């Protein structure tokens, strides 16, 4: 039972990280109908930019290396980079492709992911870097003592950050003017345009927010596994979360992430040994697939109505 709980909690916490990446997908898909395959590359780009600035800033400004000033400055600069990336994407890639079929836009984002990966490594180099957020990756003591369950402090903090992020995004969507505009655009592009919502600005904002989410996700993943090319594969982890939760739902991304994270770890531990292990790579997909057979639009996705 203890072991089961440990695996379950570990899975849920890593599920939160999947949800974080999936969130970036959902934001962009909701607002612009673009299935942004480059989200993984954006996570990589953001993390690499952050670490890169952290390395070069002490040399440029004379700030103390590893200090909090460098940390926040690097964070701000990385955020600005992500926003610039979003603006450029909107201007160079999305605007010329307006009114193209969704599949074309999807393929364009695959191209975009190659482009971003190339640029990121071209600018900052391809070597693996460590990222220190100042949170220790050790078991939480009181949990350890009271119920003998190993839960990493780092995972808890990461889950906390993700939770705050999701809550603030939900508030942003629900209660601000920008949020209203975003929801209007998500609902119907043309109707939103006709009442004077500037579509282009909205897209820039959405890509900017997605960049911010990518930065947070990249920092957490990067602190966990090192900032390296493998970060781009987080997108592949997020895809089953996405189809499970539905492409258009923020809560879906969270719930989907939790389900995928928990079931993946449980399957690896309890089913994996019987088939030779390593089933983590495909199990989430098969799970999502089976789920889709029952509900083709995902958990919280909008029901698809076909008209002839």
């Amino acid at each position, binding site marked *: 039972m203890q072991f089961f709980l440990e695996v379950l909690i570990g899975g849920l916490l890593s599920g939160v990280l999947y949800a974080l990446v999936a969130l970036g997908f959902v934001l962009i898909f909701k607002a612009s109908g673009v299935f942004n395959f480059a989200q993984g590359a954006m996570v990589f780009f953001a993390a690499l930019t952050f670490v890169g600035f952290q390395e070069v800033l002490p040399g440029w400004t004379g700030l103390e290396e590893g200090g909090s000033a460098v940390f926040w400055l690097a964070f701000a600069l990385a955020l600005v980079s992500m926003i610039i990336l979003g603006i450029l994407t909107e201007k160079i890639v999305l605007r010329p492709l307006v009114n193209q079929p969704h599949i074309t836009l999807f*393929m364009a984002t695959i*191209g975009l*992911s*190659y*482009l971003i990966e*190339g640029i990121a490594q071209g600018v900052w*180099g391809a070597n693996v870097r460590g990222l220190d957020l100042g949170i220790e990756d050790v078991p939480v003591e009181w949990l350890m003592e009271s119920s003998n369950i190993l839960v990493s402090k780092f995972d808890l903090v990461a889950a906390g950050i993700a939770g705050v992020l999701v809550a603030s995004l939900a508030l942003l969507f629900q209660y601000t003017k920008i949020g209203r505009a975003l929801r209007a655009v998500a609902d119907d592009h043309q109707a939103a345009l006709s009442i004077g919502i500037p579509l282009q600005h909205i897209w820039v904002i959405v890509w900017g927010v997605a960049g911010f989410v990518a930065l947070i996700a990249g920092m957490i993943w990067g602190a966990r596994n090192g900032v390296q090319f493998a970060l781009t594969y987080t997108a592949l982890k997020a895809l089953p979360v996405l189809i499970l939760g539905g492409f258009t739902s923020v809560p879906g991304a969270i719930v989907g992430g939790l389900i995928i994270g928990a079931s993946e770890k449980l399957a690896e531990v309890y089913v994996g040994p019987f088939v030779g292990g390593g089933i983590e790579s495909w199990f989430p997909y098969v799970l999502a697939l089976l789920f889709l057979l029952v509900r083709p639009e*995902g958990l919280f996705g909008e029901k698809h109505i*076909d008209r002839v």
Partner: protein
Amino acid sequence: MFYREAGQFKASYQADQQIFPIRQDRVAVWALIVFFAAVVPVIADQYWLKAILIPVLIFSLAALGLNILTGYAGQLSLGSAAFMAVGAFGAYNFMLRIDGMPFLLALVMGGLCAAAVGVLFGLPSLRIKGFYLAVATLAAQFFIVWALVKFPWFSNYSSSGVISTQEISILGFVFDGPTSKYMLTLAVVVVLALAAKNMVRSSTGRAWMAVRDMDVAAEVIGIRPMRTKLIAFAVSSFYCGVAGALYAYTYLGTVEPEGFNLDLSFKILFMIIIGGTGSIMGSFLGAAFIVLLPILLDNFVPSLLGDLVSSSFVSNFQLIVFGGMIIFFLIVEPHGLARLWQIGKEKLRLWPFPH
């Protein structure tokens, strides 16, 4: 002036039902086949045959397979490399386990294995559409590669699933040099490409296109979506499977499951984007483009910039150019190289008197 069908009357059913109804097309296709079968093996050296022409042909076949599924039947798939793997390992096992298995039959059997697996993973397409389906096909990609690694039976208990292909011999003739392997690949590709060209204008092909354009409407006019989609998955996977078997037997000789990864699937997807979705011709153009581009970049960037750049720069530069190209093509010509060819033909029809 040169490309004009005026005056070519179809006087028999046979003439009406030819694959290429216009004489110029027929001449051009025959000329191409003769050129690649008779002239190229003589003038091309070993490197060209081995490193460029054979992979271009094989990837053309794989792209053709994906094009049937994505371009004609409208079902986006990100798992084509996995179906190639099934074909390769299928053919390998038939050759290995059945004594005196003829190579061509093993090739077909490999393709059929891939088709069977393709139908299995195509089943969700009956309920899932669009991006959901694209992500679902990733399940095939990861599952198949995992299964080939994890179950050593598939690779005859070799370490980490690497297989070395057997010798190819047909009716006592051993295909060992690049030239003979090239000829074999060419023959298979030509036959399958003509079959595909024929298929897409048959009732099956028209059903695919109807489902692609609007599946509900297609259903209303009496096309069975389940049958149509599953046939598309089967045929597409068959082509990919045969391409995979050729990839193992005539190109690399030694393959491992991990070689058929998601990157390869994307590569094949790019081939059909750049070549043109829904075009047989486009599959060939796209494959040639994607295979040649890295080779060109590899050879020209260092010589252009001298020793200024490191090899890591070149590989990043390749990524950037690759990604940039794809975006550029989608913006400038969403219908791909095949569309340019189409425009060229229309211009030729009027040339030199456009008015």
